[in-house]
């Protein structure tokens, strides 16, 4: 392990792994400790981490990453239908197919930068969406969505045993992936993705990507062919989106076109910005926050609010419930939007910047004081 990871990285990874694996306990006070939601935390954490490898490091803002997520879902579903109910081949297949899509879409889109790149990726994603929704109905089952049936061929499975009766469900070498198993299965992939993101960020390759974000012109005149760098980042992040899409099908065996819609692409952008673009942990936090809002805030109703505001006198309570009611339940998007506006205006670096500021205020001062020091050695003096 020596040389593989610095002590700081190791600490970060161990801390992150501990939080992820203890989530079933840690999330309990927030009412989020049920496997279905926590599994979504893992899946969208992977999606956001992968997206951040492109957006956070190279600065290329893709507005079409949901396409790779959806492609991963369909590919995994077809693996379940045609090959085996085992989740591993499905995931490998999904990542490979998403990688092929990312290679083609990235190759074309990366010919442009800035807003034009974003629009190109958006256009490709909408094309994928409409292919899935209507044009390729035999493959995607259109509006209804693709699901498993007991009559599916599943060639590999039938080589070894007869098809079981009842509705087929994905498994891992015979082990069920429902409930907490599914959560831990996804958690392993989230940790692996985190490790990969950390390696890339701290590697020379990652430094080149940051150089491209900072000054692409200088990169070219420094002798780097920047196109293959950005394309590699694009393909890696597309494959991770495919991985996330496949994992979602493992728990929720229905692949639908709506996962590819532009709102889904926008959501991962929000997650990354909310948590902190270019940071390691930020995108994961952003993903968790948005999924928490989506699942918990949306389930609050007036009764929950009434008990929350029960300390107020009757008249005031009704007013409070009416106002707060607009921001929960159906209106959870309002709270999320408000949070997003507050973060972008006051903390452009996302939640991670907030954490850094708090850390700087209470913690010990960092060693960064070198920055402000006066130049002592002029080149003449150094001679």
């Amino acid at each position, binding site marked *: 392990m020596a040389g593989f990871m610095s002590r700081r990285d190791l600490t970060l990874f161990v801390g992150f792994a501990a939080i992820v694996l203890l989530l079933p306990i840690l999330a309990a006070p927030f009412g989020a400790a049920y496997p279905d939601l926590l599994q979504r935390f893992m899946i969208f954490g992977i999606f956001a981490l992968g997206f951040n490898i492109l957006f956070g490091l190279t600065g290329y803002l893709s507005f079409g990453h949901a396409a790779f997520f959806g492609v991963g879902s369909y590919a995994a579903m077809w693996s379940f239908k045609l090959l085996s109910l085992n989740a591993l081949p499905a995931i490998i297949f999904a990542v490979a197919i998403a990688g092929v899509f990312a290679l083609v879409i990235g190759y074309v889109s990366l010919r442009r930068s800035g807003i034009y790149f974003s629009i190109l990726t958006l256009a490709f994603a909408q094309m994928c969406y409409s292919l899935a929704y209507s044009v390729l109905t035999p493959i995607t089952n259109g509006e209804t969505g693709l699901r498993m049936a007991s009559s599916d061929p599943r060639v590999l499975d039938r080589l070894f045993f007869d098809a079981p009766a009842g509705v087929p469900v994905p498994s891992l070498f015979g082990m069920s992936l429902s409930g907490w198993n599914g959560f831990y299965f996804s958690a392993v992939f989230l940790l692996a993705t985190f490790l990969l993101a950390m*390696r890339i960020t701290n590697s020379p390759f990652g*430094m*080149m990507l940051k150089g491209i974000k900072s000054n692409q012109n200088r990169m*070219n*005149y420094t*002798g780097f062919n920047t196109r293959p760098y950005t394309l590699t980042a694009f393909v890696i992040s597309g494959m991770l989106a495919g991985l996330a899409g496949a994992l979602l099908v493992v728990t929720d065996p229905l692949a639908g076109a709506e996962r590819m819609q532009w709102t889904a692409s926008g959501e991962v952008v929000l997650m990354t910005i909310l948590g902190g673009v270019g940071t390691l942990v930020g995108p994961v936090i952003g993903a968790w926050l948005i999924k928490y809002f989506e699942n918990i805030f949306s389930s609050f109703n007036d009764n929950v609010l009434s008990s929350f505001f029960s300390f107020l006198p009757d008249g005031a309570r009704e007013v409070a419930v009416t106002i707060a009611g607009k921001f929960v339940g159906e209106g959870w998007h309002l709270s999320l939007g408000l949070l997003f506006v507050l973060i972008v205006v006051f903390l452009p670096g996302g939640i991670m910047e907030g954490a850094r500021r708090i850390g700087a205020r209470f913690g010990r001062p960092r060693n960064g004081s070198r920055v402000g020091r006066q130049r002592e050695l002029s080149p003449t003096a150094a001679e």
Partner: protein
Amino acid sequence: MLTRENVVLHVADVHKNFGGLHALSDIDLQVEEGKTHAIIGPNGAGKSTLLNVIIGRLPPSSGAVVFDGIVLTGKKPHEINQLGVARVFQTPEIFADLSILQNVMTPAFARRDGAFKINMFRAVDNEKEIRQEAEAMLEDVGLIDRREGHAGALSRGDKRRLELAMCLIQKPRLLLLDEPTAGMSRHDTNTTIELLKKIKARGMTKVIIEHDMHVVFSLADRVTVLAQGRIIAAGSPDEVRGNPVVQEAYLGGAHL
């Protein structure tokens, strides 16, 4: 013109038109190995256009630029750099979001690993050799004390020195400098001249576009004078200084 011995860069009969405007006509110049070649001329003489043609940013309308026997015309910027040509820009082009040390390490990677390498399973922290090399370079330009600082926070003069360090760490065979002291104070200009003299001692070939005669006459071995897109004089600094045509075109008759 006959090709002299050990010519590194040969700008061969280059013309450049922008529509009807002849920005460069009949430009033929040869830069010898290890020499500092200054290109001077009044505003609008075509100096920057010439530099952009040399570095491949602008294609010439006719003619060619040959570096070490290889035609540069039509090559991409990164290919030209990988051949051993580095460039300092008029407005410093650095990685403002990276640390000063990272700014200097990045070009060192370009030299070691080439134009593209997926080098993602090593940590930058473990690249000791590159790091030491970069620190030695920063020592040379006097920025070592601020290596962990943000490059974007540097003054213009310091940014220029950083950019110079970024070019020098690649040990280029040819260094192109576009007005390296433009917008600098007299003090910064002098430290830059000292720095460039130090590089000269290392035998690196340089082409300098310059406005400031003080800089030109402190550094150059040969001077080419451009006016209205043509070469009007060429020679050693003393020859050029005494040339009446140059005095006429450049300063309206005043003595240099």
